């Protein structure tokens, strides 16, 4: 929402960026597309951003117009490069990061999408996923893919399109139709589209399709057969950092397109979590936490996802465990919009700071069930421990604590699955401006919480990967040297208090479960 640092006051005096060359990163996100130009120190030189329409054809359905998105991507690239006063010669590479799992299919001869893109949040494939689980259930493909059968992932969305767009299956089997997540769509168009565009995806995006075998990093023929998806539609799986092709046309004509990473993996990369056991957590509307687990995929028995973290060129792939919290920033918005207890999101800290503790109140925001590590769709939100003593300030505190405890639950699950203790948590996202929340997370984890100096870790990750691919940066060590600590919160809570509070939180979580019974479970 706020104006970006590089748009206006920059380029003067001590704050001017270094001299080129530069790397451009495209972030094709859920609500907007952005382009950020970075210099060699990883500092932002210019930014442009454009929102696209959210299309809701039915309850639970969410679509994007892929053609509009491609137009916007061209515009923001053009504008960011112009704002920085650069030409194609100054830009060494383009990197891509994108909303994950969102699925588009298009005609390779006309370049026209055959349907709106189906967005990751879209739940139209719920029933299909249940059906695909057959007698095994949602873990049918977990061993191969690291994922449960859930409506987020791309594979079932492809199947839905093949089943529901008239004539699509025949055209797909003839080889006329291409599938891609948004990285593939952007790269294909950047590199020429119908005139020789390259049809590729990277390992991180492919790991969110439910179609890629995590061990071989190849499309899994058995799963393709089970889902009835013709291999002809699929892009070639590449690493996250290599030259896929060169830009055709536009302000950056001829510049290599040299990275692709799903947004959360890009943030892991931008936070330079290159060592096993390093983790980042992005606090936005929801929260996504990823931990680098090294060169072997770690199976989760605690409700986490196994995914590819990144792969640089022909080096060994790096895997990650992922846990997400559905409701974090959106709980603060709920306090503002539905409860009217605060006027702005930032005021939650003001209100919460007027009291020393939660007054005995615990808020479990299971608005649409409990996610990792519980996965209980029958749970609903509760505020537990209420007495006459509790004020709205205690509730505000409980709201912030809910995010912190859920972070703790995910880190505990990661430790159990990976056997690696978390030494420090790197954070980014809008909620990192909440000092009390960051301190509370550090207290509850009993580990330092560290905020980097560049908040745009997602774009930075894509830029880093592209820069590595073209030799702009020499190694991950050089990138690590670019990383700067902007703030660090260290634990101040004594162990006895932490343990007692954690027990109370877990009791509250228990109270949220089983609220819906069979007769009330919503579809």
């Amino acid at each position, binding site marked *: 929402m706020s104006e970006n640092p590089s748009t206006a006051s920059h380029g003067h005096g*001590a704050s001017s960026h270094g001299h080129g060359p530069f790397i451009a990163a495209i972030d094709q996100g859920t609500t907007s597309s952005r382009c950020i130009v970075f210099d060699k120190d990883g500092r932002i030189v210019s930014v442009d951003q454009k929102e696209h329409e959210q299309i809701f054809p039915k309850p639970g359905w969410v679509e994007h117009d892929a053609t509009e998105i491609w137009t916007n991507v061209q515009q923001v690239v053009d504008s960011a490069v112009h704002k920085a006063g650069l030409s194609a010669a100054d830009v060494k590479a383009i990197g891509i990061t994108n909303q994950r799992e969102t699925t588009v299919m298009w005609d390779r001869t006309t370049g026209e999408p055959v349907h709106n893109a189906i967005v990751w949040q879209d739940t139209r494939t719920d029933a299909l996923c249940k059906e695909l689980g057959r007698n095994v259930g949602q873990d049918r493909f977990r061993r191969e893919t690291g994922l449960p059968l859930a409506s987020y992932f791309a594979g079932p969305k492809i199947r839905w399109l093949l089943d529901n767009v008239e004539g699509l299956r025949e055209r797909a089997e003839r080889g006329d139709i291409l599938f891609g997540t948004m990285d593939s769509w952007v790269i294909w168009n950047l590199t020429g589209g119908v005139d020789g565009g390259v049809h590729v995806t990277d390992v991180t995006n492919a790991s969110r399709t439910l179609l890629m075998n995590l061990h071989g990093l190849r499309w899994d023929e058995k799963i393709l057969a089970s889902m009835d998806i013709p291999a002809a539609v699929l892009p070639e799986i590449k690493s996250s950092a290599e030259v896929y092709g060169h830009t055709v046309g536009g302000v950056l004509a001829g510049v290599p397109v040299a990275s692709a990473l799903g947004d959360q993996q890009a943030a892991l990369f931008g936070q330079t979590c290159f060592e096993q056991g390093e983790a980042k957590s992005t606090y936005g509307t929801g929260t996504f936490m990823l931990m680098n687990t090294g060169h072997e995929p770690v199976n989760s028995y605690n409700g986490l996802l196994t995914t590819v973290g990144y792969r640089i060129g022909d080096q060994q792939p790096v895997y990650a465990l992922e846990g997400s919290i559905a409701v974090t920033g959106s709980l603060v918005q709920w306090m503002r919009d539905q409860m009217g207890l605060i006027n702005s999101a930032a005021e939650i800290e003001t209100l919460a700071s007027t009291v020393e503790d939660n007054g005995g109140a615990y808020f479990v925001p299971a608005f649409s069930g409990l996610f990792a590590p519980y996965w209980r769709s029958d749970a609903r939100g509760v505020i537990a421990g209420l007495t006459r003593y509790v004020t709205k300030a205690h509730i505000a505190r409980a709201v912030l604590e809910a995010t912190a405890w859920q972070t703790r639950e995910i880190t505990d699950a990661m430790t159990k699955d990976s056997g690696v203790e978390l030494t420090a948590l790197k954070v980014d996202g809008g909620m*990192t401006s909440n000092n009390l929340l960051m301190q509370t997370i550090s207290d509850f984890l009993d580990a330092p919480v560290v905020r980097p100096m*560049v*908040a745009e870790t997602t774009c930075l990750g894509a830029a880093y990967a592209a820069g590595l691919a073209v030799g702009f940066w020499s190694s991950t060590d050089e990138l690590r040297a670019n990383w*700067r*600590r902007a703030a660090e919160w260290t634990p101040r809570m004594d162990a006895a208090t932490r343990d007692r509070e954690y027990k109370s939180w877990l009791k509250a979580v228990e109270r949220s479960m089983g609220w819906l019974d069979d007769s009330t479970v919503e579809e």
Partner: protein
Amino acid sequence: MARTIQSLERAAAMLRLLAGGERRLGLSDISSSLGLAKGTAHGILRTLQQEGFVEQDAASGRYQLGAELLRLGNSYLDVHELRARALVWTDDLARSSGEAVYLGVLHQQGVLVVHHVFRPDDSRQVLEVGAMQPLHSTALGKVLSAYDPVAHSEVVEAERAAFTPRTVTGLGDFEGLMGLTRARGWAADVEETWEGVASVAAPIHDRRRMPVGAVGITGAVERVCQDGELRPEIVAAVRDCARAVSRDLGAGRF
């Protein structure tokens, strides 16, 4: 009794009229209810609109009370909102200046640090959010004292302790510094609070041009000064940052 100002009375009557009903009112409703010529009513409404006390619905052209009236009753800027708005700009200031950045607001008789960005080297540093600094000797405090009348009256009445031989304690000298600060738009503290430490700060204004805080850098005097003078590029970077945050809060260009 002193003469009253007719147009202010009319403006007050308009606000009461708009506050009375739930519907939006058109220009002719307003002018006829108050017995004013349309041109006169329109001139007052336009002025009120400019100040944010009245808003005009784009589709119907009708008028309603503006958001500014709500802000009048609840006028202070939440410090956590200030931090959220300042975050990207202060990170950038730390990177470009190579020094630690602090954001401060007036709290009781001192400066409350509401945001702190570490100096961008790999040294161990401790987050100082929540710490207090003196008003009369620090760069943040001087800026607040120069621009915020409440801070100014605090600092004038308080005892101004000498932390170092360089601390300015006498009222006359101090007022001179205030004038200088207002004239050039920034303040400095060269070893007036801590030996070996220098800082530079500039004011942050909100959309009504009210001073809401100060932002500045603090570092070793050897790095911040050169040949006994503050490095001009550091002063420029601090002022750029303060302007950027002010703009983000809606203040006009200045």
